[in-house]
């Protein structure tokens, strides 16, 4: 039955969006992490979405094909008292843009909600189809 594909499509999108939400929360949590395991400031991460074609079916889902590091330069904060400050007194901060991440978070949450509603609609229709003729 072709309607069953909708569950696959919506769930793949929900997985992708929740992964995006995960990355957003990691970025926001580390917005002020001046150092990490490699000694450098934290770099913002972004997910890359790609269309995922199911074999034979026309509809297509979503998959995350990778998590890339944001290459934009980090903030430089003047704080000579800081233990990690350089010779000029500047501290290299992460390149996380908190405003961008909040927007990203809302967009991911809305897309997730959209897919939940798609799934609910498909479920209602299928249940009604099963009750046909009763």
């Amino acid at each position, binding site marked *: 039955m072709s309607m069953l594909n*909708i569950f696959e499509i919506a769930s793949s999108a929900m997985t992708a969006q929740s992964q995006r939400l995960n990355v957003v929360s990691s970025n926001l949590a580390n917005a002020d992490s001046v150092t990490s395991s490699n000694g450098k400031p934290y770099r913002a991460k972004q997910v890359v979405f790609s269309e995922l074609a199911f074999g034979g079916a026309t509809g*297509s889902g979503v998959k995350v094909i990778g998590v890339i590091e944001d290459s934009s330069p980090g903030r430089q904060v003047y704080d000579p008292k800081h233990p990690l400050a350089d010779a000029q007194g500047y501290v290299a901060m992460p390149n996380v843009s908190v405003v961008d991440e909040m927007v990203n978070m809302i967009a991911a949450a809305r897309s997730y909600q959209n897919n939940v509603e798609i799934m609910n609609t498909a479920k209602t229709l299928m249940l009604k189809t099963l009750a046909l003729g009763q």
Partner: protein
Amino acid sequence: MATIEPLDNLFQFHQNALNLRAFRQQLLASNIANADTPGYKARDIDFAAALRDITASRTASTVSLRATNGRHLGGSTRDEPAAVLYRSPQQPSIDGNTVEMDVERSRFAENALHYDANLTFLNSQIKLMLAALQG
């Protein structure tokens, strides 16, 4: 089976319509799922044309592959119930994505409602037939 055919004919139209609606629902679901995928192009079908097509091919059901050998396969002429078209966007995104959420959501809701309506019609036809059978 000749005895089943009138009943089959009665339900055929709604069966075709339901199949098309389910197919379209799937396309719209994948449009909404890919709302954030760069380069994704929104797809849809022309429902009226597709249903007309299917109904016409049903009435001209004599057209089929000729089997001159017992081992020839019947085969079907198409694997998709309708021609899939690309939507022309009003406001495409800069990343090449042409999904417009307001359009897709309203189409999705509309399609779900039509599917529901089709089920209701089919149900009442079944009830009618049962009433005729049981008296």
